[in-house]
């Protein structure tokens, strides 16, 4: 069980996250939706301290820390329990596909190179890119880069995988192949917290959907309920905008 309590983040006078509480069960797939600029990405980035919050306690995989005041060692311990998939892929530009995945295994987990590469090859095969081992990011399509980005996150065997709008920088033609990899992970019950505008993914695979606005969780529930019978007028207004055909 992952427990987040009282997560607060301000940028100057602007409160971006306003005391978020969130529990995530092992193997749960949680999707966060909401208008842009409501702190969804910041929420994810606080989960692995890419962003330092002003307050908040997090318990994950036997580690409890005060997110606002933890030291470097604790931050590392947290980052080694989580994995992050970036909107813009953020593959290491100086490393080929295989090494992008193996890097963590070699440098952080200290696996022997041969073992790390064998494991990275398995992952490449799982994301359907076994034939692109030696390709550098600059030679890959957006969809391929993001699949490797997810592969790099898979190498961590993380207690929680964080997805920050993984498909929104992609040309439409590449979205499905990335969603397929995420679906594969979801079906394998990898615990994940996903910020996305892909309502199909939320509806088909999420155990729970969270609607955020103004730095707060407005409403949450299983997709079957939240998408069909949203309780809050703000949720209803948002869903009407992103799902024009749906009856909400």
């Amino acid at each position: 069980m992952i427990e987040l309590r009282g997560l607060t983040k301000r940028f100057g006078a602007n409160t971006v996250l306003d005391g978020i509480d969130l529990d995530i069960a092992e193997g749960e797939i949680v999707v966060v939706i909401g208008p842009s600029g409501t702190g969804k990405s910041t929420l994810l980035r606080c989960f692995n301290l890419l962003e330092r919050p002003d307050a908040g306690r997090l318990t994950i995989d036997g580690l409890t820390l005060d997110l606002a005041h933890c030291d470097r060692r604790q931050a590392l311990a947290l980052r080694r329990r989580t994995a992050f998939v970036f909107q813009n892929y953020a593959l290491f530009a100086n490393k080929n596909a295989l090494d992008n995945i193996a890097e963590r295994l070699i440098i952080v987990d200290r696996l022997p190179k041969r073992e790390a590469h064998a494991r990275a090859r398995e992952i490449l095969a799982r994301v359907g890119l076994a034939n692109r081992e030696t390709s550098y990011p600059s030679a890959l399509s957006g969809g391929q880069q993001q699949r490797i980005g997810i592969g790099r996150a898979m190498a961590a065997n993380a207690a929680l995988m964080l997805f920050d709008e993984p498909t929104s920088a992609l040309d439409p033609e590449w979205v499905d192949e990335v969603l397929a990899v995420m679906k594969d992970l979801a079906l394998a019950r990898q615990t994940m917290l996903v910020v996305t505008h892909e309502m199909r993914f939320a509806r088909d695979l999420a155990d729970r959907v969270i609607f955020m606005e103004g730095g707060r969780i407005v409403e949450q529930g299983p997709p079957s309920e939240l998408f069909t019978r949203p309780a809050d007028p703000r949720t209803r207004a948002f869903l009407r905008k992103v799902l024009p055909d749906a009856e909400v």
Partner: protein
Amino acid sequence: MSLDFDYMLVLAPILLGYLPLTLQMATIAMALALVLASLLAIVRVLRTPVLYQATGLFISFFRGTPLLVQLFLFYYGLPQVLSFMTRIDGVTAAVMGLTLHFSAYMAESIRAAIVGVDRSQTDAALSIGMTQAQMMRRIVLPQAVRVALPTLVNYFIDMIKSTSLAFTLGVTEMMGATQKEAASSFLYFEAFLTVAVIYWVVVETLSFVQRRLERWLGRAYRR
């Protein structure tokens, strides 16, 4: 005007005999300067208190004063105030001066290259659990080196040519040897033309290596 080609052909091999010393000084100074400049650059980027101010002063001084003045300061000046430096020889003083002088310049171009590495690269490195040092070594510096390479090679070229100043410290390197040969033959034009051509050829060879190196470092970035 007549040019004594035969003299130049005789002189060239004699001067080339001093080329190894010239290249040795330049290579050692370059290697040391690269290490020093990287350290300076990292301090500049991280803004480590105290060290940041100290490196600022260092860079300001060594960029702000002529190399020749610095060489004289090390070779003739320092031994008068520091007793352990009384036995410093010309080559050591020259390498020291070149290292400090060029590291000040190189630190700035390495710093700029480090700052130019995209934020997403450092975010990704941190997200997989790398320490700051691992991130620098594995992700940031390799990418920064590629950007800084053309400027760094330029400094190396400048450094090779600047080793000629060592002759003012009594070192008989290529320039010092030319000076001596010219003084005995009185064929100043031929002598200095010969040494100029040698420097030129060395630098052009280096430029060729640079183009190869750039292509190799750019292999990850070709579409």
